[in-house]
């Protein structure tokens, strides 16, 4: 393992501290318990709080700021944060209109946020994101994973919350966006958890993992490396199979890097995916390409599609000012 770190146990606090120093105009960091809030507390709006294991940067702390989150609770690497973090964050950012938790659907995150929600005295609700189509939903499992589509949920609900909408409306929009969003990822290399010191999984020089999770969880299948167009065709087919868009539907196309894949390749994937979607009669009217929901140092990428409607478009296009996403202000 070769990483820019000092002591394994200091990685999280040093990295969060650097993040807060570099973006002191946008965020403020609290330690023990760890959470990140906006530099300027918002008033008269539903407070949006997300969080999860670290290692997915810029998710979630990178999306704290005007137009997106009010607070983020970073856990240890790939480990859900604990309820004391959510409680302290909620106390800091509650502005009298309640708290909406945005939680990626993993057992650990769900249970920790659930316990925080139970202990919290302020009105609150939770949106669970579960956009990863690699794992089929079924009644007897805990359901699909939340991955890069979470960024879209945070952006869109974040925008609605700035308008002063109430808790129920924010939750409803979050659930709607989640239902209209599907993602699937592919890994070319494993990631390495600093504390573990070695690769999470082994993968051959000519192999890829189709449907991989953002923690390096195995996906649908291991297969031989193929041209980008063939990989994209499989990812897009799996997502469309799940979302079943109407003919001529308008979509947001996101190509998300897992951290070690260069922008040059991400744009090449975008080109391949947009061509394919157009050929299938879909209208790609919004895009996002870059490293937004990463998997430590994994080489790989995911494709996310979100079925747009006027409400989602309006809130996608609105101004946002965070470390990880900024437009219009």
């Amino acid at each position: 393992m070769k990483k820019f770190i000092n002591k394994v146990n200091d990685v999280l606090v040093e990295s969060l501290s650097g993040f807060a120093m570099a973006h002191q105009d946008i965020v403020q960091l609290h330690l023990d318990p760890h959470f990140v809030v906006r530099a300027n507390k918002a008033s008269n709006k539903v407070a949006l709080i997300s969080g999860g294991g670290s290692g997915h940067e810029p998710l979630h702390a990178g999306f704290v700021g005007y137009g997106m989150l009010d607070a983020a609770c970073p856990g240890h690497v790939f480990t859900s944060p604990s309820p004391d973090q959510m409680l302290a964050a909620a106390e800091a950012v509650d502005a009298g209109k309640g708290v909406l938790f945005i939680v990626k659907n993993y057992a650990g995150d769900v249970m920790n946020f659930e316990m925080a929600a139970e202990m919290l005295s302020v009105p609150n609700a939770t949106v669970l994101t579960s956009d990863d189509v690699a794992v089929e939903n079924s009644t007897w499992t805990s359901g699909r994973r939340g991955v890069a589509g979470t960024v879209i949920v945070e952006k869109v609900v974040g925008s609605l919350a700035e308008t002063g909408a109430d808790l129920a409306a924010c939750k409803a929009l979050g659930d709607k966006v989640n239902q209209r969003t599907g993602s699937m990822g592919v890994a070319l290399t494993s990631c390495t958890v600093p504390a573990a010191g070695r690769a999470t999984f082994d993968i051959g020089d000519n192999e890829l993992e189709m449907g991989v999770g953002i923690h390096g969880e195995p996906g649908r299948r291991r297969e031989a490396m193929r041209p980008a167009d063939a990989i994209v065709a499989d990812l897009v087919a799996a997502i469309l199979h799940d979302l079943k868009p109407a003919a001529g539907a308008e979509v947001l196309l996101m190509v998300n890097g897992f951290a070690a894949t260069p922008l040059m390749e991400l744009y090449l994937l975008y080109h391949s995916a947009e061509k394919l979607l157009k050929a299938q009669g879909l209208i790609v009217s919004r895009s996002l390409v870059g490293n937004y929901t990463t998997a430590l140092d994994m080489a790989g990428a995911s494709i996310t599609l979100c079925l747009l409607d006027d409400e989602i478009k309006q809130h996608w296009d609105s101004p946002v000012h965070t470390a990880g996403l900024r437009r219009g202000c």
Partner: protein
Amino acid sequence: MNTDDILNAIMAVDQALAAHEAEIESLDRAIGDGDHYINISRGSQVAVAMRGELAALSPDAALQKLAMKLLSTIGGASGPLVASFFMGMGKAIKEHNSSLADVAAAFAAGVEAIRARGKADLGEKTMLDVLIPVSRCFTELTAAGAEPRLIFKELKQVAEQGMLSTRDLVATKGRAAFLGDRAIGHIDAGAKSSQVMVSAVCDLALQT
């Protein structure tokens, strides 16, 4: 059972986990995300560090305090589950001098709290595949008035069987659930760490 027994159990569990680090870690790497040992040992280390504070408390208060600390320390899936266990046990245990039957009842309450929190049951390839059989056996044997040494020996065996039983299961809870059939053939990390902890406490009881 008194607070001293809790303190000794904490030490025994911490040492036993450390002795099984590589094994627990590699199990979670195979069908989870590789951090279960790190999470659970972060908990056991903080528990060891708390022994001074806990010593002054009654067993129920000690377990409650331990639960809250573990809740804010472990994180991940195991954090809320382990914390729920000690909360449940702390609520159920007598203030002082619990009998073995009392401890069995409190243990059952702890396991029930895990079930409630995780919405899982026997056969879902989780720590419950160790804890539920252990709890049932513990309750039955104490109710039947079995000899303590026999009880602890038996519990170790039941824990071992439960742990091994997860190998052939498909997971329906936790990260391994994402794998479907691909999880078959691997023992669940949480089941292994639970078996290690149960064994360590039983060994402690057998020594004294």
